[in-house]
């Protein structure tokens, strides 16, 4: 087959097989090989067990009926059939997760980019602003969700301020049910997470912005480009690997949103009215709380497929891979 390529051939009849294998192993030192595997032994064992074995195990569990304390019983596609066709709640969870991700990812990416561009200017107190904007990202999601709930509950500070300026739709109690109105609860989580996550992505954007050569902007300015043109024609194309990383990891994280929805529904997953039920919440409720490990595993596999497809789409869209 090599002959068809038309290139000059070093081995017209194909590389001698034995020599190639021997040559392949000749490049290694015995000590390196033994020590290399020894170094990797424990790290790889942990990694493989809790990641790769776990993923294959998940597929296996998804075709069993199993409550862990009993013996697993093979049930074929029953669990998938159950979540797809019988349990209407699963589709609500899928819808909520996707809807959430589709809104939160553009919002947090845009906000992070804007903050990064501004903080990257030659301004006083740059470091202070960076510190202040990034801090919400490193605090515990549970703690910050509770802070948010304290501010946005029906008797909270935000509703009080709204009542002072007579703003906002008047709900049953004259307040905005940020956390209790099924039409608002998921949007409130979107607001919360846009705020907390954008700090992280601001830092990543900032690192990428600092790699954009300064003289490119100066050259553009001499050519009469305005700021907006410079951002569109220079900044955005040059930081594309960072954008890919941010959108891809943002999407993967958003589809798996759990902590905020779990804390906000106060031990009553999905409340109000399943409006904050996400896929991971469904998996948690079905498996860990409901002892239907087969169904939960099936739901996780579906989630894996959704995330896989989403990542491929993002790659297509941004068309440039990150360094790894």
């Amino acid at each position, binding site marked *: 087959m090599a002959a068809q390529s038309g290139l000059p051939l070093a081995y017209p009849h194909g590389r001698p097989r034995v020599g190639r294998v021997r040559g392949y192993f000749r490049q290694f030192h015995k000590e390196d090989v033994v020590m290399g595997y020894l170094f990797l032994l424990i*790290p790889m064992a942990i990694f493989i067990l*809790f990641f790769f074995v776990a993923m294959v195990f998940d597929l296996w569990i998804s075709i069993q009926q199993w409550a862990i304390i009993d013996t697993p019983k093979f049930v074929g596609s029953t669990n998938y059939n159950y979540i797809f066709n019988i349990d209407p709640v699963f589709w609500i969870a899928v819808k909520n997760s996707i809807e959430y991700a589709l809104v939160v990812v553009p919002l947090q990416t845009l906000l992070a980019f804007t903050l990064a561009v501004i903080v990257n200017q030659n301004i006083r107190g740059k470091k202070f602003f960076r510190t202040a904007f990034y801090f919400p990202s490193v605090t515990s*999601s549970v703690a910050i969700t509770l802070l948010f709930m304290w501010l946005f509950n029906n008797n909270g500070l935000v509703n009080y301020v709204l009542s002072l300026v007579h703003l906002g739709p008047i709900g049953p109690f004259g307040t905005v049910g940020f956390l209790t109105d099924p039409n608002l609860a998921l949007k409130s989580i979107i607001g919360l997470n846009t705020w907390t996550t954008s700090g992280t992505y601001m830092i990543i954007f900032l690192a990428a912005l600092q790699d954009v050569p300064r003289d490119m902007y100066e050259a553009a300015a001499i050519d009469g480009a305005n700021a907006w043109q410079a951002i569109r024609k220079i900044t955005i194309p040059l930081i594309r690997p960072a954008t890919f990383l941010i959108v891809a990891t943002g999407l993967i994280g958003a589809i798996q949103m759990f902590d905020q929805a779990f804390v906000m529904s106060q031990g009553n997953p999905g409340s109000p009215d399943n409006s904050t039920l996400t896929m991971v919440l469904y998996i*948690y409720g079905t498996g860990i709380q409901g002892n239907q490990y087969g169904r*939960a595993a099936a739901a996780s596999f579906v989630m894996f497929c959704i995330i896989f497809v989403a990542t491929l789409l993002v790659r297509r869209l941004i068309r440039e891979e990150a360094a790894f």
Partner: protein
Amino acid sequence: MALSIGVRKRSGPFEMSKRAVFYLILIGYTVMSTIPFIWSGLTSFKSQPEAAQTPPTGIPINATLDAWKTVLGFNSSISGINVDFLQYFKNSLIVALLVMAGNLFFDSLAGYAFARMRFPGRNFLFYLIIGTLMIPAAMTIIPVFVILAKVPGFLGGPWLGTYEGLTVPFMVTAFGIFLMRQFFMSLPVELEEAGRMDGLTRFGMYWKIALPLARPALATLAILQFQGSWDSFLMPSFITQSNPSLYTLPVGLAQFSFNYLNYWPDIMAGAMVVILPILVVYVFAQRYFVEGLSRTGLKG
């Protein structure tokens, strides 16, 4: 400076005249980002009636430490609330330090092997690990739960509701291995070769020469792992659900907020117990937080 005459000195695509708008945005966003922390911090010093009153008070009028005493477990006879954030704090600290130590050792060990040694399957294994960065961790919730439940007796299993379960699965991370490999590859190999001349073994070269030189990368990794473990909620919440005495801070705080829905001063005091240690670490080691993120593969 002399060379830049005629070209206005600037750091980005915007002109000086727009700075004012930037400052307005920056200050506005800063206020928005800090108010939740300040407001909640103030609330933790209020009595319950004061926290609930309208119009709300800013600085507490009758400042009290009751909420703090309650969550730290000094008040249970009076408040009737049995909760011990000191215990959760201890659990979180032990778990975070163990996870951190595990990652420092195992990630650097694997990173060193990938950076410096040649053995069959090296690249395959490395890309296998890196590939998992794009795979959802939540897919492993159910299998990890089952694996921990089924850890055989000779390993001290089952590991649900134990420190082993809270730490061992998280002691190796793809990001950590990647970070350490990149750093080791940037070190000059000559130093280690000199060590070999002096009769060091491979492990000696790693332990005595490469590792001390990798201190900046290790610091970054330590900070990120500590923070990740400290804030982690999903996995610890189901690993400890059978054993409340092992609740980590986020798990204990979430449970507390479910059990005492409207005890806002107490909940806020609990939230402060979770947030403040990270704030302290953040203030002193911010450089390493930023470093870790900036290295997420962009500069490969």
